């Protein structure tokens, strides 16, 4: 049975590497650089409201920074236009916390929902994603543009980025 354990260990570490090279998206996405197809949207979730800093964003990598000002745990969902298919979700946003949801969005209409209390349909708002001109992969994939290089990139990080070169933008599961 240790052979099974070894296989599991190999599979697990392979998975970590795979995600490290395919699953990372740029954190450096201030609204000022929105023309490059990366934008940050601030969301404030309270007991009875779900306020978004903007209801339109350019296509590409979108980062929703969700702050919980209520007294209950909240979740934030981004749905497709039908309001059912999950595009992205971040959970465990306790009172006083702020967490990021990073998604890659094509142009179109989406539905954003805060779910204080972690149940029900939530408080919903439409979000319109406009065409930024940046090509966005069809499904389940990351932004194709490389994040801007920083001067003080940690060695491991740059190693991962380098190793991920040919794989960036590939879907994790075809």
């Amino acid at each position, binding site marked *: 049975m240790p052979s099974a*354990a070894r296989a599991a260990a190999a599979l*697990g570490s392979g998975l970590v590497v795979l995600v490290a090279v395919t699953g990372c998206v740029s954190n450096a996405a201030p609204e000022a650089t929105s023309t490059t197809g990366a934008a940050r949207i601030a969301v404030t979730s309270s007991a009875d409201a779900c306020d978004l800093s903007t209801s339109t964003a350019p296509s590409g990598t979108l980062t929703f920074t969700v702050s919980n000002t209520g007294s209950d745990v909240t979740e934030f969902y981004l749905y497709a236009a039908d309001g059912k298919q999950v595009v992205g979700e971040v959970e465990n946003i306790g009172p006083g916390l702020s967490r990021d949801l990073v998604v890659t969005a094509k142009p179109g209409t989406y539905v954003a929902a805060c779910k204080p209390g972690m149940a029900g349909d939530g408080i919903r708002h439409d979000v319109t994603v406009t065409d930024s001109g940046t090509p966005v992969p069809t499904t389940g994939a990351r932004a194709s543009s490389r994040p801007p290089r920083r001067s003080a990139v940690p060695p491991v990080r740059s190693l991962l980025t380098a190793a991920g070169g040919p794989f960036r933008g590939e879907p994790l599961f075809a």
Partner: protein
Amino acid sequence: MLANFLIGLREGLEAALVVGILVAYLVRLNRRELLPALWTGVAIAVGASLAFGAALTFGPQGLSFEAQEAVGGILSILTVGLVTWMIFWMARTARHLKGDLQHELDDAVGTGRRAVLVVALLAVGREGLETALFLWAGAQATGRGSAGPLVGAALGLGLAVALGWAMYKGSIHLDLRKFFGVTGVFLVLIAAGVLSYGVHDLQEAGILPGINNLAFDVSSSVPPTSWYGTLLKGIFNFSPETTWLQAVVWVLYVVPVMWSFVRIAWAKPRKGAPARPQPSAVTAA
């Protein structure tokens, strides 16, 4: 603070209980020399989760939603495989105990250091990244001058660890056969919950279909933010809004695994006869 406390408790409980059971096994079987391997697995999982979480929170790159769900889902299913193997390892041990055949017992528990390390690693690492991201969000809130969320989360995780320790202390005095029989049944239910949770993660990531086909929704009577909702979720991964695929997979796992386990572990020993040789097919699915 209470809400963040409950999140910490929920995220830590299942891992703490599995590790508590694993420690109890090794101690009961006089395999204390494997304890360092177990703690190494736990330490690697905690360290890697915190480091990866910190890199994603404070570094130049974040993790996309699909990638995080895929990690959670796949690690969950790997964990179920390993825990299932552990359950049958236990069942065989319980059977050997009835025959009082010490050498066969030694064979059955002749499990490698690496296997113990990997089970502990996966049990803790499975939800480690999500917990680390939650904790680092608490650290960021502390940086903004509000330490309450981080303190609450840490207290919740602390209670989870204390309950894992209590599980170890409580089970260590049970009659040995009862100990294996009862903890095994408990582990089958935990593993089934992890499997169902992994299916839900993969459904959310769009890798498996049917995220909106709910088998039942009891979130009005079992609110996820209540203390009992927290315990049900934390121990058995019970989701008040369960999809059909989750429910079907849960039943398809529990029925055959529980049946096999009870048949092996709780079977009446044949008086005077040596225990039967082990069927080699009894392994993790």
